[in-house]
């Protein structure tokens, strides 16, 4: 074997009851490179990384792991960390009420005879924070810093373990553009210090920007390994082709909307922060949507997109909410979620695991959750009818599952999102607000979700799509509102929409507005 490879995983096969998650997967990572792993959700990327980091210990899989030329058999995470392999999971593993320094040295306390040396802890932590470029005091509590900074703390923690091979699972999924850029820059500078990184990401532009090599996994098998800076530059389209096994010339389905009467309008909608009640989170916003129309809402993090949607959806967010809402031209009061649903408004959350699904319950129970009344007489649920409904959506929306009695927690992200959509489509709303409907979903499933959105519009529903991905908004919406600091700063028709123009509105500061 060549010695410049820091890691070789050979013929890795991992079986779960009834499923082969990985089959003869090979992965070779050169020392000092940034190696990206791409694949649709459920392709087996995370499983592979769990094997590499010892989460699935030696003996639970077949195949061989060779680290710096030595075959290794990890029995657990501590074992892999001793060999300099550190994984940072998508869901950060920090303890919120401990300080940055305490978190960095959690499990590796700077102690002598069991007594922690706090001065050493804090000074070592400060050095690590400087290395990752995080300007925070080491005694700051984790709850008091944002997700972007928490991600940096995780990396500092990895550095404290003298990491040689750093694995990052979707590191920028929860970050805004600025934090993402900083993080990617940091990964590059770590590379200059000889640290090899493996990065799993759905954001292909980021992979294009930082990766030296990309390995594509599909259906539990290695498809190909691409040299990113070879003779032919590898494009996003090239990676997508490998991931889905075909070329996706058109990432958005063709669609011409038939736009009808106005179905929902809000005027002068103002929402205050639930704790800091002096702060306006949504400020005097007015928007409308017509039947058959797909309306986008663009905005940077903190612009108040989700807050606008949730405050409208039965006052699920915020305090001191004022403004008027009109449904089919008539003013309505949406005091709680029940009232919003009765008035034909539905909201599919951006955070489906926290707010959207009961992961420990079955698909059929999740699908019926918001419209159980339709399946019940005298408070008794017709379970046969319920199962039929779930079956129908399984087929219509192509939810990949052996049975609708399967637990939702076992499904992949794209299929979970389809369950969320099924739930709200079954509630048969007139207005459907979709908050980041394609977040964390692979390219193929995204296309399916767009098709579903188009179908809903064709049925005469008004659809509002909130998204951080501007190409997505431009690709599917008839009209796009831009939000900045809680205010509607612009409204752009599809024909005039460009990323530059939207970004201009989205970054419009308060004092320069012409209002």
């Amino acid at each position, binding site marked *: 074997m060549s010695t410049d490879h820091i890691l070789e995983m050979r013929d890795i096969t991992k079986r*779960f*009851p*009834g*499923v*082969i*998650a990985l089959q003869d997967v090979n992965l070779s990572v050169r020392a000092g490179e940034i190696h990206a792993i791409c694949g649709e959700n459920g392709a087996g990327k995370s*499983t592979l990384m769990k094997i590499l980091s010892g989460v699935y210990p030696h003996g639970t899989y077949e195949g061989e792991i060779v680290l710096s030329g030595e075959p290794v058999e990890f029995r657990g995470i501590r074992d892999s960390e001793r060999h300099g392999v550190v994984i940072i999971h998508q869901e950060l593993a920090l303890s919120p009420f401990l300080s940055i320094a305490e978190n960095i040295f959690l499990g590796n306390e700077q102690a002598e005879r069991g007594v922690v040396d706090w001065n050493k802890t804090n000074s070592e932590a400060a050095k690590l924070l400087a290395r990752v470029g995080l300007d925070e005091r080491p005694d700051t509590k984790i709850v008091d810093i944002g997700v972007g900074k928490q991600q940096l703390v995780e990396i500092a923690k990895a550095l404290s373990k003298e990491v040689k091979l750093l694995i990052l699972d979707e590191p920028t999924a929860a970050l805004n553009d600025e934090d993402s850029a900083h993080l990617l820059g940091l990964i590059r500078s770590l590379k200059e210090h000889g640290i090899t990184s493996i990065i799993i990401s759905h954001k292909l532009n980021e992979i294009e920007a930082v990766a030296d090599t990309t390995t594509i996994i599909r*259906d*539990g098998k290695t498809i190909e390994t691409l040299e990113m800076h070879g003779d032919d530059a590898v494009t996003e389209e090239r990676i997508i082709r490998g991931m889905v096994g075909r070329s996706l010339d058109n990432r958005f389905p063709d669609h011409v909307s038939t736009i009808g009467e106005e179905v929902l309008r809000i005027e002068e909608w103002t929402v205050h922060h639930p704790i800091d009640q002096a702060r306006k989170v949504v400020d005097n916003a007015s928007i409308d949507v017509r039947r058959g129309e797909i309306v986008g809402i663009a905005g940077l993090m903190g612009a108040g997109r989700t807050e606008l949607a949730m405050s409208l*959806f*039965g006052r*699920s967010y915020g305090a001191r909410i004022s403004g008027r809402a009109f449904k089919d031209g008539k003013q309505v009061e949406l005091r*709680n*979620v*029940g009232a*919003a*649903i009765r008035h034909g408004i539905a*909201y599919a*959350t951006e955070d489906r695991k*926290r*707010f*959207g*699904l*009961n*992961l*420990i*319950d*079955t698909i059929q*129970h999740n699908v*019926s*959750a*918001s419209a*159980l*009344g339709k399946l*019940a007489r005298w*408070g*008794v*649920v017709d*379970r*046969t009818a319920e*199962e*039929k409904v779930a*079956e129908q959506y399984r*087929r219509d929306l*192509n939810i*990949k599952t*052996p*049975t609708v*009695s*399967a*637990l939702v927690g*076992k499904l992949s992200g794209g299929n979970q999102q389809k369950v969320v959509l099924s*739930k709200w489509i079954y509630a048969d709303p007139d207005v459907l607000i979709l908050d980041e409907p394609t977040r964390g979903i692979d390219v193929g499933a995204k296309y399916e979700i767009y098709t579903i959105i188009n179908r809903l519009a064709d049925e005469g529903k008004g659809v509002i799509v909130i998204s951080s991905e501007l190409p997505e908004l431009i690709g599917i919406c008839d009209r796009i509102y831009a939000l900045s600091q809680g205010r509607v700063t612009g409204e752009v028709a599809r024909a005039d929409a460009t990323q530059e123009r939207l970004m201009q509105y989205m970054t419009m500061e308060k004092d320069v507005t012409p209002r």
Partner: protein
Amino acid sequence: MTTDLNPAPAAPPGAQARVPLGQRMAGLGGNARQYGIFGALVVIVLLFQVLTDGKLLLANNVAALFQQNAYVMILAIGMVMVIVAGHIDLSVGSVVAFVGGIVAVSMRDMGLPWLVAVLLGLAVGGVVGAWQGYWVAYVGIPAFIVTLAGMLIFRGLALVIVGETVAGLPSQFIAISKGSLPNFLGYANNMDVVTILIGVLAIGAIVVSQVRARRSLRKHELYVEPVGLFATKLALVAIGIGVLTVILSFSAGGTPTVLVIVGVLIVAYTFLMGRTVFGRHIYAIGGNRLAASLSGVDTRRVDFWIFVNMGVLAGAAAIVTTARAGAAIASAGQNFELDAIAACFIGGAAVTGGIGRISGAIVGALIMGVLNMGLSILSVDPSWQMAIKGLVLLFAVAFDLINKRRAGTR
């Protein structure tokens, strides 16, 4: 990927039956665990049957088993709902003493007819539940705190009302716990005919309802379990009820009245939890409170009524306990909350909420009851009995966890 999966998208729903058994079982994880608990009960019964030289399943002992443990089963029904919703209720033991005191005083000192006193007891239980439900649901204080306070409040009030003991209660009232169904059909071969009749009716009702449910599934082309498995399950249930019926029919009184009460509650609450919108909302709240609330479930109202219901059932347990003791005692109901909570967890309820069944809680209560009775027959020191029960609780939950871990999560 197994080849069976390939035709899945195009196949009609009836063809799902071809899905590999392993995956199907994964979807039925909850059920598989339920079978385990039933198995554990059978094993424990057989174990003590051997250890006690057959004394455990003597007719009068079986009747006494239900009479002694009716209170745990009644409380466990309410408690499993509380636990599934992600709460806990530590106050039920004190509420039992408090309501028992009110019922006894209302009969002895105020001369209320026993039936009115019983209804009063249920109503007072409901009011107590509403009090606690208000603080939990509408003020947002964790149930642990509210019911810990309730534990002190109602124990204190019980002492105020009862003093030490209120005795001299009407015999019809005492018969609720000590009596049996009247034997108006006489005996056949020494067997109480009323008991046999009830057993036969119960078996018949179960078979008919299961067959009808199966027929409905088939009519709608939904998945039905293989006929062999279905028949085996039905046969086992029928045999279980049959054996119990025959044993009870030889007992001194026939069917204990409390068994009928508990039986009716089990059927009613199994239906409530499994088939009604309210039951579904309880599971939805326990599984993910935020998601339930954003699906339009009025979580506060559901929480409130769960506690009202728990209060009413605590009232029922108070009546059964007071009737059995023949008197209201200020120290009655001590540790009842722990018995009920233990029954739920032995029966497979999840500490984090969202998972748990009435049948599991009942079986959990029976496991504790059989242990109590078996150890008593063996004249094991009560202190040791307590320690053994603690270990059983620990091992039952540990076994469950290990099983779950072995099943593997991806």
